[in-house]
């Protein structure tokens, strides 16, 4: 629009001051981008969960085992399309501190139920033929430089071998990807694991199963748990999403903490830009009065002032957000094994733009209103 030139020129009236304001806004939105990505990384487990996949754990806690015999019974429940089991192997690589996420599973069934896992057909075939084979997640493979055919020793933590060897040896059968973004885990074969372990034979950690699209998840869950009530190992079944959420909640309300910090940050920004804007408008009251004498309407002047404040916030905000995105893409690899899915989602970006617009209007509105209320005569008289 034709007023843009005027607005643009007015923004740069005092170069240093404008740059300083823009810089603090850049910092604010850089923080916004990084923290939102962190927030997403924490919660993505729940967001990306499959609504038709349910998890059954021991009612006492996730740590307690369940008998393998439950599998058949779960499969028999109406509405259950497919079911399998999994366990937490734990284990460390090279140093006891470097604990890994290793899961002993049934190769066929697990991949059927977790279609998000992407594996090349020849790697899958190899895994099925190698009893001590391990499928490694891509981010771990990249981090430790594992290739197909490598032998990797995993130190025992929870599960000891019955032959007394403190190390479990595995052969890398293949490298997999996961469309959910997290590839910081490995899959081993349950049959090999069960045979070689010293305790807990025949038990599993939990069950994962798919329900028919038209089945009611809550009812199926109730039925499954009802089946095992009053048995030696009672169960608790929930959707994968609910399960992830309750797990994440144990870390504390990360979302709340992040929102509070961002709140403090934006509060400061509003202070700084608001103050700058107010100063700027105050200085220009005689000019604004002149524009009025030329015939500019109040609404027009309001628009010009708001245009300036919004423009300043947009400039800083877009640059800050861009910086955040650049940093995230640079470090995402490093963090992939600890915090996968650390990225700025589209909705977070859109939210950021809306916040920018809101902040721009908010910081410009007050000074603009005071300026509007001045009569031209008074304003012109001021020197």
């Amino acid at each position, binding site marked *: 629009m034709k007023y843009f030139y005027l607005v643009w020129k007015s923004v740069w009236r005092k170069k*240093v*001051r404008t740059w*300083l*304001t823009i*810089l*603090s806004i850049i*910092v*604010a939105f*850089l*923080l916004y981008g990084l*923290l939102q990505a*962190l927030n997403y990384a924490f919660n993505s487990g729940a967001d990306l969960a499959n609504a038709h996949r349910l998890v059954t754990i*021991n*009612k*006492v*806690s*996730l*740590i*307690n085992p369940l008998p393998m015999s439950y599998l058949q019974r779960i499969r028999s429940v109406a509405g259950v399309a497919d079911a399998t089991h999994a366990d937490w192997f*734990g284990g*460390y690589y090279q140093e*006891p*501190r470097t*604990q890994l996420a290793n899961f002993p599973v049934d190769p066929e069934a697990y991949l059927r139920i977790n279609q998000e896992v992407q594996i090349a057909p020849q790697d899958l075939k190899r895994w099925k033929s190698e009893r001590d084979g391990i499928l490694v997640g891509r981010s771990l493979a990249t981090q430790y430089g594992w290739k197909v055919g490598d032998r990797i020793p995993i*130190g*025992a*933590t*929870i599960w*000891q071998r019955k032959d007394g060897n*403190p190390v479990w040896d595995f052969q890398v059968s293949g490298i997999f990807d996961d469309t959910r973004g997290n590839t910081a885990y490995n899959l081993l074969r349950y049959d090999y694991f069960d045979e070689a372990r010293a305790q807990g034979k025949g038990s599993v950690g939990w069950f994962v199963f798919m329900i028919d699209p038209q089945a009611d998840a809550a009812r199926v869950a109730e039925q499954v748990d009802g089946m095992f009530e*009053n048995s*030696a*190992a*009672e169960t608790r079944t929930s959707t994968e999403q609910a399960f992830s*959420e*309750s797990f994440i*909640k*144990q*870390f*504390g*309300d990360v979302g709340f903490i992040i929102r509070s*910090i961002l709140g*403090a*940050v934006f*509060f*400061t*920004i509003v*202070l*700084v830009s608001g*103050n*700058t804007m*107010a*100063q700027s408008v105050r200085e220009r009251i005689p000019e604004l009065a002149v524009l009025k004498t030329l015939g500019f309407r109040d609404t027009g002047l309001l628009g010009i002032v708001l245009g300036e404040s919004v423009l300043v916030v947009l400039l800083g905000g877009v640059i800050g957000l861009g910086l955040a995105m650049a940093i995230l893409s640079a470090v995402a690899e490093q963090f992939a094994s600890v915090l996968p899915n650390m990225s700025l989602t589209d909705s977070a970006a859109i939210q950021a733009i809306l916040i920018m617009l809101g902040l721009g209007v908010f910081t410009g509105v007050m000074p603009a209103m005071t300026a509007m209320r001045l009569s031209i005569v008074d304003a012109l008289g001021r020197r």
Partner: protein
Amino acid sequence: MIKQMLAMTAMNVRNIRFRIGASSVAVLGVAAVVGVFAAVLSMAAGFERTMAAAGSEDTAIVMRKGASAELNSGISNEARQIISAADGVLRNGDGKPIASGELYVVVDRPIKATGTGANVPLRGVEAPAFVVRNNIRMVAGRVFEAGKQELVVGRAAQQQFAGLDLGATVKFGKSKWTVVGVFDAGGSVSESELWCDIKVLQSAYQRGNSYQSVRVKLTSPAALETFSAALAADPRLNVSVSSEMEYYANQSRDLARFIRIVGYPLAILMAIGAIFGALNTMYASVAARAREIATLRAMGFGPVAVAIATLLESAFLSLLGGFLGGVLTYLIFNGYQVATLNGSSFSQVVFAFAVTPELLFKGLIAALLIGMLGGLFPALRAARLPVATALREL
């Protein structure tokens, strides 16, 4: 020159009330930075304090070799007996070793604040457990009776998780337990736990006669070496020994480090933002007082004194902000109890934010830095203000 400087600084500070708008902005901006900085880092400090409070130097913890956490460890009954009888273990009046073989499982309890479930440690202990550790004190009820499904709960656990009041009955899976006592553990991690008789736990969870760890009271902190050597020399044992202090320090390291890795860069970024804010304020301040400064210069006040006075004004505002931020954070957050999942124990640790004097001091230093950096360029500008033109600005 000092006199000039002090006189001008005093004048500037007195005149701040005429520039209250811009000055408040600088103060509040720095307060926000210091506040967030102190809040985030007090989380790490509180967490570490909780973990450290649990560890004492004359208590040793023995686990299977290679196990980094109790959950990963396994010790047989025979091993436990050998360990308890080893050299360096303190004995009580009856000549019995002060040692406690322990095992814990994770049970589910709803968090009072959110209602969602959380992993809480249920620890089976031997009678000496209350003495092996230095800081356990019963504050309500009594200790559980041997052989009964009774619990004593840590004070922090009782506050954070639902249904753990004195006399309450709790159901874990199929077993029913009664809460018969509450204990205080000096704010340490033990307070996040539920304790019971180990024999009862072993039977309830089909653990046979196995343990995860043995805690012993040493005759003295120095005895740790003798004790470790004795265990290492025994061919029947395959264990690792560490002082409890070391053990808990290791446990807390990861989470504390994570909080710091997020906290420090966050604080630095915010500080940069605050510096820009402070710069803005100080530039505006210098511009607004250009005539004043020029008049003073015309009267003979030197440029260096002017610059330093500006710098001091900026430092004063920032320190005010730092103080404000620190006090607010202390009032709001200190002692605020939260719980989170500790990766190594896979269960909740309840800890309180600790806004330590050290942290507040760091905050003030940060504020001072912000003030100095924010005031530097404006101070230079004030010093180099062309006197004649500034005076003509009438």
